[in-house]
């Protein structure tokens, strides 16, 4: 298969867009036959997969970037793909954004696209990432990035295999307050760390629904391609509520209250601890409906405590983390103007610590920009596939612990539960044909 085949259509596309002042003047890499490898001075051609509310938020972060041009979107729901097209066309002042219902057609034909923004529901995150990377695209994927251990492994392997850049939407890893907290921990301000606390979504439960919503008449495929919407999940009859967000709390589609926020907060903790290439080895079951208070222990003895924090005693915002050491603590959540610290004097070092982090890692305080920079430099993103997979493995293990209602041990090297056949059977779910990767 050659990567030169789409030149005619791309040139036609460029011919139309070049005259428009709103469109960045840089030439996309694909013109030079460099699809999938964007040199530093060139433009990144972006496409979308499954962009809804959260995705629109991400898209609105990406569109103002001067070296980005968004050209097409793909969604099995007509209303959503048309909404994205309208947003993009309004921004560029043209009607050029293309829409696709079938992800396979989208990926196979749009070889001009360098990277995709994938913001489907949880059930499609890993599948979309694998298919896109296999088609040579770099991927910015919303969280939680995988439903199972096996899906996470597939994302890691595919990114490495095709040397793709992948960023999981754990955007707090690129925010000053959270970075400062991580640097305090890394540089020893807190002394020896013994406990980290991670917020889990207060409104959901760990146990999830297995029932079906009442069957409704299937809409025309052009309006909603129900088979594609389900993707790799077990079949169930159509109900419009699934497509408007009520897939949450269903076992087939969601990763529970633990994954809802744990996808963020476990990753934040594991990055802060420098333990993003592993997962806790022990999980203690707690007899409640959410996993609140569960203690997961890393091999070095540091405890990760899951906190629902319903009465807002630990944080007064969402997706909080708190790191506790022998010399003090730091806590941070969304909406904080500055982190809460046991020693106010540390705050004087805020700017230096964040600046030094950016210089040391060459990662800016913009999650989207970090991704776009890495598309060009081919460096590892801050929320790279391995980090995503290992923090999501913590989510999966905690969920399985809650479902089986007992303590368990995980061997992170083998990625299997120790002497626990039953738990190991949760590590993957057979994918529904033809969505088999």
């Amino acid at each position, binding site marked *: 298969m050659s990567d030169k085949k789409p030149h005619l259509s791309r040139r036609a596309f460029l011919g139309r867009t070049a005259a428009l002042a709103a469109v960045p003047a840089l030439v996309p890499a694909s013109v030079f036959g460099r699809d*999938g490898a964007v040199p530093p001075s060139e433009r990144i051609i972006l496409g979308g997969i499954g962009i809804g509310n959260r995705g629109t938020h991400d898209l609105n972060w990406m569109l103002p970037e001067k070296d980005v041009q968004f050209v097409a979107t793909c969604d099995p729901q007509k209303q959503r793909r048309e909404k994205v097209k309208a947003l993009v066309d309004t921004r560029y002042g043209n009607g050029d954004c293309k829409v696709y219902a079938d992800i396979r057609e989208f990926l196979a034909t749009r070889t001009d696209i360098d990277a995709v923004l994938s913001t489907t529901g949880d059930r499609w995150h890993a599948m979309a990432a694998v298919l896109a990377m296999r*088609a040579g695209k770099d991927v910015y994927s919303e969280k939680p990035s995988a439903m199972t251990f096996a899906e996470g492994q597939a994302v890691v392997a595919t990114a490495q295999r095709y*040397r793709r850049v992948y960023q999981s939407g754990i955007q707090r890893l690129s925010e000053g307050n959270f970075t400062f907290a991580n640097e305090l921990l890394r540089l020893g301000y807190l002394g020896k760390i013994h406990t980290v606390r991670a917020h889990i979504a207060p409104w959901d*439960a760990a146990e999830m629904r*297995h029932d079906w919503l009442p069957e409704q008449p299937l809409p025309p495929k052009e309006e909603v391609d129900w088979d594609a919407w389900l993707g790799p999940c077990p079949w169930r009859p159509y109900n419009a509520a699934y497509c408007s967000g009520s897939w949450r709390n269903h076992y087939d589609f969601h990763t529970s209250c633990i994954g809802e926020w744990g996808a963020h907060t476990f990753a934040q903790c594991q990055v802060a601890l420098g333990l993003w290439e592993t997962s806790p080895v022990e999980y203690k079951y707690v007899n409640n409906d959410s996993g609140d208070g569960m203690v997961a222990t890393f091999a070095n003895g540091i405890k990760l405590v899951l906190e629902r924090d319903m009465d807002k005693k630990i944080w007064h915002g969402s997706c909080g983390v708190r790191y506790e050491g022998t010399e003090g603590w730091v806590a941070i959540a969304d909406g904080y103007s500055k982190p809460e610290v046991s020693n106010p004097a540390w705050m004087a070092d805020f700017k230096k610590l964040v600046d030094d982090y950016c210089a*040391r*890692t060459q990662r800016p305080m913009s999650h989207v920009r970090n991704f776009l920079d890495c598309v060009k430099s081919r460096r590892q993103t801050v929320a790279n596939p391995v980090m995503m997979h290992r923090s999501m493995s913590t989510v999966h293990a905690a969920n399985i612990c809650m479902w089986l209602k007992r303590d368990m041990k995980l061997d992170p090297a083998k990625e299997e539960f120790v002497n626990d056949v039953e738990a190991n059977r949760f590590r993957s779910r057979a994918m529904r044909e033809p969505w088999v990767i």
Partner: protein
Amino acid sequence: MSKTRMHLVMIVALLLTSAVPMVAQTVASQGDEAKLIAVLKSSEASRQDKIAACRQLAIMGGKDSIAPLAALLGSEDLSHNARYALEPNPDPAVDAAFRSALGKVRGLPLVGVIGSIGVRRDAQAVGALTKFLSDSDVVVAQAAARAMGKIGTTEAAQALQAALPQAPAAAKLDFCEGLFRCAEALAAADQKEQAVAIYDELLKLDAAHQVRGGALRGAILTRARGGPKLLRQYLRSDDYILFSAAVQASRDLPGDRVTKALANEMGNLPADNQVLIIQALGCRGDKAAVPALLDAARTGPTPVRVAALQAVTELGDAAAVPVFVQLLDDSTAEIAQAAQASLATMPGREADGAVMQMFQSGEPDKQRLALDLMSRRRIKDSMPALQQAARSADARTRQEAMKMIGDLGGADQLPTLLELLDGAQSPQDLTAAEQAITAACTKAKDPLAQAEKLAGRLSQVKPAQQTALLRVVAAIGGPNSLKTVRALVDSSNAEVRSAAIRALGSWRTADAAPDLLALARKTSDSAEKTLFVRSYLDLAARGDMTLEQRLDMCQQAGSLVQRINEKRQLLGILGKIDSPEAMNVILPYLRDAEVQQEAGIAAVTIAERLMRGRGPWPYAAELVEPLEKVIQATTNDQIAKRARTLLQQAKEGRRKK
């Protein structure tokens, strides 16, 4: 319905009740396998019940469930669910069942079965799968190629290599995927020569960029020897895909030979390619790259120079410091800024020393830049120089130095800072000294004790300094300091008296509230009353206190607030308190024509915040009555509309799905 049929229906109903789990229970109780199998076999059970049974068998199915599940593999409706149950079952009989199904099922179920064989890495299936590589159904051929890759044995790789030339165009990427998987599996099994042979073959294909790039990466990194040689070859490639893949691979290839190869090739390349190599050199962490990076930083296209400065900073080598200093004066603004950023973040004492030297130059511009760098680098050793600069003839240098002393120093710097405050030559000097004293006190081990000491000095300093110190004391707080400041409210000096009242209004905590309230109630002077009330409201707005304390302050203020601006200020504070009680305090103002609109906005804003997200909202029931009152009282359509929406949600207790 016949009796026999009714009997059957009842049996199935009983089986389902006990075997299929409740809505929210992932794992059924132990020992249910037989019942679940019965559901699978029952002609009365619905598709939903059978799917639920399969899900349970995925967790706890044993040998007995294999045959009943295998019987469903050809079913369009249940094939996936049967695989869902079989795939995680560790019993080897599952593999035999899947292999057996290969010859029986067709279409999408066949695609699924092939996929499951791949997931289970069943090496015995290679022979049977090989024939599907040339299946006329391209989806089947694609699935077979990927499954062979998962199995990843020498035999699987050979079968894929043999079939690759005839693979249909639509399946080519899947065949490549299969070969990549084989190469990875073989390399992991220490059969590296075979793996390298596969990567070399993939590299030669006229394939998509990701295949060629991935193959080159594999070919470089898997070779026991010869990786660096191959890397060098492709660093000279005109094909940007392969060049980029080679550079990317270099990050995982340690050794100074690789560093040298990258550095040597860099000079002959276009700017984009140079930037890519420079970034890789920074990432690799080998300091042997520093001389080449410094050369690149000195001359050449701006993006290359900026990238080189960033990379050498990443490596953290002190040899770069003189170059950073030199480039601070570069005629290209981007370079000067990049050099400044590098000097600010480069670790080590050499960079500290360079900054201190810059400061000692005596040139105001350089001194100010050095001050900024000292702050960014947090150079604690710079204190003597800063104390000297705080007495500089240059006003900006003087003021920045004072701020820096507060920023970098602690309580030990307070004597110096108080001396500077006393000698302040201008209001700007005074402000700088005041900020520095606040910063230094805040970082002290016992800030309240420091504030008390400062409060003790209040009577000894000039009025302007007294005002500044009062603000410092208020920012830190403490009961003893409060007593001192409270006493100054009775001062005969109007300036001091006014400053003391304002200090109470900017007190850090709610402790000053009773004093301000009592003073406001006691005074008969209307101008002074206004000052007390506004200070009280300032404290209610900004003080560090609990929600309950703030609400109490607002309730207490009700009887004192008379003027329209004061009412607006009070409503502004109440509107930020997330509590149904705050709404109740607001309600009377809905009948006040002067602030009716502000009251309506404050009330609905609170309700909106209390019912954020999907719910359930614990306060929903308490919001019903206040919202009804808002709707009744407001004359503003927008506020009424917002309140009606909220009222409906509050009555339902959560947002409608």
